[in-house]
């Protein structure tokens, strides 16, 4: 094909020098943008911490200090001793509810995911499809009736009302089932040939292989309990059973509606600390779990 001739030779040396300058400039712009955005993103955390260390007088200044002149831990003392807040009780309630509902939820999730992934029974696909369909419905719709139900059963202001109703999540069953399905079925058949029972197989093979997903689910569920607000507020808003988020929102505001912000910030910092510890040590699992599941808590 004669009309294809090679590209006209061009003297591009100068262009290439110009381009490398542009490249460096581009890099500077990219880094500047990212660093500014990063500062904006972490600023609230910074502000929370330094505010919690300020005395009220310093906090009220018209020109704020970016670092406290006097580091004052009194706010933290106040958080731990405040008789309205009852931080110890809040922590206890939240951890108890979180641990029990996560553990229970995990057992149920693993068992049902296993049944859906590996066992054969009539109506399996229809049942699974029906479960998936419920995921489309906003949770608020369930709350109305669930409130009636727990009210009727006299569960209001108990631990079980916080633990049981939202213990199972269809989404996690789905997530784990998908993970289980990736485990080659030959392993299951081989185990059957060797006379391994279903439960033993589940425990010895499936769970270890799906462990990253199970850890992700555990962390996300725990975080969910730690952050849950609406349902606990509705059904267990008494001193004995109140959860931490709920307690936090109403504390430190005096009768006139004026908030002691430094103390409040100290409380927020205390509540956020466990989350940050989890974040620092288990970041990998959270990020993996989130990118796979795409939900918050």
């Amino acid at each position: 094909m004669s009309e294809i001739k090679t590209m006209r030779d061009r003297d591009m040396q100068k262009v290439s020098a110009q381009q490398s300058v542009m490249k460096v400039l581009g890099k500077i712009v990219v880094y500047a943008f990212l660093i500014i955005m990063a500062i904006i993103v972490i600023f609230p955390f910074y502000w929370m911490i330094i505010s919690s260390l300020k005395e009220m007088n310093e906090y009220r200044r018209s020109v704020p200090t970016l670092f406290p002149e006097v580091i004052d831990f009194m706010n933290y003392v106040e958080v731990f001793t405040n008789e309205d807040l009852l931080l110890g009780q809040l922590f206890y309630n939240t951890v108890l509810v979180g641990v029990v509902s996560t553990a229970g939820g995990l057992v149920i999730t693993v068992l049902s995911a296993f049944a859906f992934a590996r066992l054969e029974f009539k109506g399996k696909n229809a049942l699974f499809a029906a479960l998936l369909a419920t995921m489309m419905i906003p949770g608020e719709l369930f709350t109305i009736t669930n409130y009636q139900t727990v009210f009727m059963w006299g569960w209001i202001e108990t631990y079980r009302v916080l633990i049981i109703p939202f213990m199972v999540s269809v989404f996690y069953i789905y997530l784990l089932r998908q993970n289980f399905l990736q485990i080659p079925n030959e392993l299951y058949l081989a185990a059957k040939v060797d006379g391994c029972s279903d439960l033993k197989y589940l425990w010895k093979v499936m769970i270890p292989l799906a462990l990253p997903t199970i850890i992700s689910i555990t962390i996300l569920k725990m975080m969910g309990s730690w952050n849950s607000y609406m349902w606990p507020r509705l059904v267990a808003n008494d001193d004995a059973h109140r959860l931490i988020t709920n307690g936090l929102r109403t504390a430190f505001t005096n009768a006139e509606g004026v908030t002691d912000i430094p103390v409040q910030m100290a409380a927020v910092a205390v509540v956020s600390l466990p989350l940050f510890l989890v974040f620092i040590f288990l970041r990998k699992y959270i990020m993996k779990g989130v990118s796979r599941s795409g939900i918050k808590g």
Partner: protein
Amino acid sequence: MVDSKHQWKAWLYLAPAIVLLLIFTVWPIINTLRMAFLEGYTTAKEANPFIDYEFTVGIGNFVRVIQYPGFMTCLQNTILLCVLTVPISTFLALLIAVALNSIKPLQRLLQTIFFMPYVTNSIAIGMVFAAMFNMIIGGSARPDSVGIINNVLEALGFEYINWMNAGSEYWANIVVMVVYIVWNALPFKILILLGGLQSVNKQYYEAARVDGTPKWRVFTRITIPLLSPMLAYVIITGFIGGFKEYSSIVGIFGESMGPVGNDYALDTMVGFIYRAIGNQEGTASAAALILFAIIFVVTMINLAVSKKSTHY
């Protein structure tokens, strides 16, 4: 798959999940439909041992919800927040993800920082944002403290704004909410989009380089189309989350859902439903079904649009 003769075993494993889901998921769906279409339904009336109420079937609850003046405020706030926050957060997340994907040094550190807001308690950090926007009124005309955000504004030569204290204006309240919701929504979107970018085959970019494709053209013609499934995903989940906005507002404004003296100015659909629980179940159910319908329709529209624009 093994043809299990012991079908009952499968059902045994499923039993706890099925029992809980029947009671707390399936029954509520049925019951919500029932309550929504019973005229003037309340639990109190139904449970009253002395009077045997006969509810008639009708759409009265829906009519009442829509006619209720507070509901329109809720709807308006919800839609406004959705329409503002989803595009802003998606666009910012896209920029950050693309920028992060183009660098090597500091990438992991920055990625970690950008993910931090995800691991927070939205009520608790909402209180921090409130502190940043909040003014502390003193004795004099100028507040003792105008809040760090206003300090920054003044340093840049602007006047301070009453963002959320008593007497603050609606648009200022909305700005506060948008800032907070966007900040909260970024990490998830960045994570998904960055994951998408990193899974794009590098050879597409090399092929484009061989052809001397300008950067912006690589971005619009290759990156965006290849990323479109993830973009569609974060936009859809963004809208679904946006229509359920509630706790972020409680975090900033408290249960009054508005600045002092203007309660419920920022109320949302979910807020409306929650307040009707325990006294107006018929209305709450109707409102919940409306919310579901809106989310359903918006998701379908999103899916239809994304099907047209995602090419593979």
